[in-house]
């Protein structure tokens, strides 16, 4: 089962230019198949865990994110669940914005992943499509520093206003106070 997840790994490197090495396999699920036709270079992978739901992931490039999310919404994924971000630090598109959507009608989940480069961390905001994405995108901006264009109110939500830096980035230290007893971990 583990090679399944590793297979999931390398498509991220190539999501910018979808090479031909990965055969264009349409997902077996009818809804996702219908969704996949109009978007040739969106890579669909799925991961069958031991417990819980089958996890379908769609790796999208930044350019067509808005179009794809709108298509996903029309395909029946009407419930917005989550937007979060992952800092891969030394991977080529450094950040991953992970959008989690749920379809209550078909009881299906879809995770949309967008690679965001480290030097210009901006991506389109999906709050016009899902109003629920507002606070989540503000939190991602606040903690990870990814700017969402078109977001109505991109201010800090969780940290005090005058805070500098984005703590969840891997190069931001934990900021722990060194504890007095000997041999404790230095303030990493």
């Amino acid at each position, binding site marked *: 089962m583990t090679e399944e997840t590793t297979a999931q790994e390398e498509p991220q490197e190539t999501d910018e230019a979808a090479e031909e090495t990965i055969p264009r396999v349409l997902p077996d699920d009818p809804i996702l198949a219908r969704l996949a036709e109009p978007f040739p270079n969106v890579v669909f992978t799925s991961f069958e865990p031991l417990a819980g739901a089958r996890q379908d992931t769609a790796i999208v490039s930044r350019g067509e994110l808005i179009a794809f999310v709108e298509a996903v919404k029309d395909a029946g994924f009407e419930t917005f669940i989550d937007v979060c971000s992952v800092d891969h630090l030394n991977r080529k598109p450094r950040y991953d914005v992970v959008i989690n959507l749920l379809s209550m009608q078909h009881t299906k989940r879809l995770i949309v992943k967008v690679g965001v480069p480290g030097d210009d961390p901006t991506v389109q905001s999906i709050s016009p499509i899902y109003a629920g994405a507002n606070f989540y995108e503000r939190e991602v901006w606040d903690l990870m520093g990814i700017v969402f264009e078109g977001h109505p109110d991109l201010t800090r939500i969780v*940290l*005090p206003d005058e*805070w500098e830096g984005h*703590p969840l980035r891997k190069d*931001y*230290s*934990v*900021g*722990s*106070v060194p*504890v007095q007893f000997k041999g404790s971990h230095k303030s990493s």
Partner: protein
Amino acid sequence: MAGEVHNPNFLLTTLDKGVSWTRTRSMWPATFGLACCAIEMMATGAAHHDLARFGMEVFRASPRQADLMVVAGRLSQKMAPVLRQVYDQMAEPKWVISMGACASTGGMFNNYALVQGVDEIVPVDVYVPGCPPGPQSLMHGILTLQDKIMAGEIRRSTGLL
């Protein structure tokens, strides 16, 4: 209070002891519940463990009517000025109990987000250990504070009483 009593019908005490006694027996805590310790503080205040036995009949929300501030929970950097403001707006004489490991020393969250110990912001009288401290430990902390008040002097007396 007063040690030896010649005549059992007389109760000899000093003004300090008398006033301190009145202060300790009806301290109203200001609700400053932040996180998990606040749930234990509410459980202590509810019927089963009943703080009213120690004179803490009711948790006053506004600092104007409170004598004791129980900081129950983890204090984040964004909440620190609020804590200081509420502490300043409490009327003297006022005391602070720092309830739980997170309030006393930042607890298990030694990171950027928490103030590592409430005593960096407000003077603390009693630290209650535990994560969260059970109702019994909180009550023990309150009794310790009452003994501390009984021992202390009420005000620097300036000559003429």
